[in-house]
């Protein structure tokens, strides 16, 4: 069997794995409940909150990731390896621990000061964004760096001989050249933020109509042993998430591959 066949087979087996998981949900599926749950005020709030906070967090994370990734990919400076390695911290320590670390941080004088002078994060919707931001920042930076690593420095150099400042060369040449990698980084960050649960629940809590994102709502359903409700919410979550990503991909395909 040719490489092509084998590799497509593998791709579909990955697809099948996930598809079977989604389909097996239907084992517990009840149509009426689906409609009722989907259009309840509470679910709609969760959907809005999830999309809003995931988008803000992913945008923030990507925005911060771009300059950091540039430094890691292009410059040499002492401590670079340390910076590079710590990017995996949010994954390593697990989301719940990360949430605990955030809580512990706000327990400190510094954290306290921030909370009293600045914005509330603990048990607040700001906390959702913060939790999602912190969990995605590392992976967004890592992915952006990986994308930039593949773009030869040469293009930037040549741009500079044409009169571009380092910043202009970066924005006009390197950034658009790694746009596909950047888009992948953003999409993954968004997906990760959408699904973020451990850190969010620990830092922002589970208050309905306030900090209840979709993953938290799913967890709460599960925590109340409401399996039918869980299944419905997972289906909603899947539909919204995968649907959005599919749409984004279709739209950006034209823009990116043009």
């Amino acid at each position, binding site marked *: 069997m040719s490489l092509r066949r084998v590799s497509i087979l593998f791709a579909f087996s990955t697809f099948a794995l996930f598809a079977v998981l989604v389909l097996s949900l239907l084992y517990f599926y009840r149509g009426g409940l689906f409609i009722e749950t989907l259009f309840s005020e509470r679910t709609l709030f969760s959907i809005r909150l999830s999309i809003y906070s995931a988008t803000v967090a992913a945008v923030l994370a990507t925005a911060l990731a771009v300059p950091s990734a540039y430094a890691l990919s292009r410059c040499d400076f002492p401590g670079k390896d340390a910076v590079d390695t710590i990017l995996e911290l949010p994954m390593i320590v697990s989301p719940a621990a990360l949430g605990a670390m955030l809580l512990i941080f706000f327990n400190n004088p510094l954290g306290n000061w921030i909370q009293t002078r600045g914005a509330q994060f603990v048990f607040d919707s700001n906390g959702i964004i913060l939790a999602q931001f912190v969990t995605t920042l590392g992976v967004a930076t890592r992915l952006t760096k990986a994308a930039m690593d593949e773009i030869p420095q040469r293009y930037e*150099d040549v*741009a*500079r*001989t*044409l009169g571009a*400042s*380092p910043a*202009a*060369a970066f924005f006009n*040449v390197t950034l658009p050249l790694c746009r596909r990698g950047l888009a992948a980084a953003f999409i993954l960050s968004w997906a990760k933020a959408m699904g973020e649960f451990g850190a969010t629940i620990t830092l922002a809590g589970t208050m309905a109509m306030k900090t209840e994102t979709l993953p938290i709502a799913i967890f709460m359903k599960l925590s109340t042993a409401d399996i039918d409700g869980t299944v419905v919410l997972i289906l909603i979550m899947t539909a919204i998430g995968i649907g959005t990503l599919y749409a984004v991909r279709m739209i950006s395909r034209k823009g990116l591959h043009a």
Partner: protein
Amino acid sequence: MLELRDIAAKAGTFALNDISLAVDRGSCHVIVGATGSGKTLLLESILGLRKLSRGSVLLSGREITNQPLEKRNISYVPQDLALFPHLTVEDNILYGLRMKGIKDREHARMVEMLMETVGIKELARRSIGNLSGGERQRVALVRAIAAGNNHLLLDEPFSALHQGLRRELWFVLKELQKSCDLTVLMVTHDMEEAFFLGDRVSVMIDGAIRQTGVARDVYEKPADTAVARFFGIRNIFPGRVRALSKSVLHVACDSLGAELTIPMGAALHQPTEPGARCTVGIRPENVMVLKTDRPSYVQENLLAGILTEILLKGATHTLLFRPAGTATVVEIEVPDYALKKLQLNVGDGISIFFKGESLFLI
């Protein structure tokens, strides 16, 4: 005016050594040299793409050795072109203008005309990926010129073009040099190009510049044997000046078993006195073959010996000749028709003859 003072740079085990060069304002300086002799490295060092280990670069008298790349105002056509793959042809070309915030109509019209002249105007909206090699090269050229700098470094900018277009672009470049007051430093391996475009030519060998001068001088009066070899002077013999008059020089070449008569003016530096050591060279195509059974009408620079080998090639062929009483090999290039006419065979006794004016004194 671009000036290099004792530049040195390293790349791995390769080194550029103490290169000094001055390109006058508005002139074109050509660097020729074998592949791997460090030409690209030199351009990169001037641009700041590589760190100098020593020396300084001056632009119109101002030192730019430690200036950032974008402040040097030197445009560049790299050997690998490095066109921006995400931009269209037009956006590539306008990149420099946009970076400098130049918006005036005239400049834009000039660029458009330039695109038309080099024949890439219809490609304006195409993406870089599907251009042919020669199209790419022209885009890179126009991009560099359009940036509006007065100094231009070109690394084999016409190597992918066919003869006709290449010649046309030579004229275009000459024209632009005048109209835009361009100072050009250019690398090529095409001698014709060097002759045509180069006000001055430098020969680079093994990371050092061995000779600089007017193209014809460099070609006709190589400063040393390495340069001579580079220019295809494959017959090189050591000699000793026996006598010299106002118009000619008599050189004894033991390896040829003969004395050669060379007109004055065949070398850069004339040996000043009898007895001085010197080197004599001649291109294979300037060696004439005479069959010994025919009467010879020349007396000077005539050598008798044996034809040791005939290498058939195509339009021209190479003969190897051994002067009588020596172990030296003289290479001779003869056109196909001449070889046929001469009806030579290996082992034949023949005579060869060097025209005085085609002998080099190195």
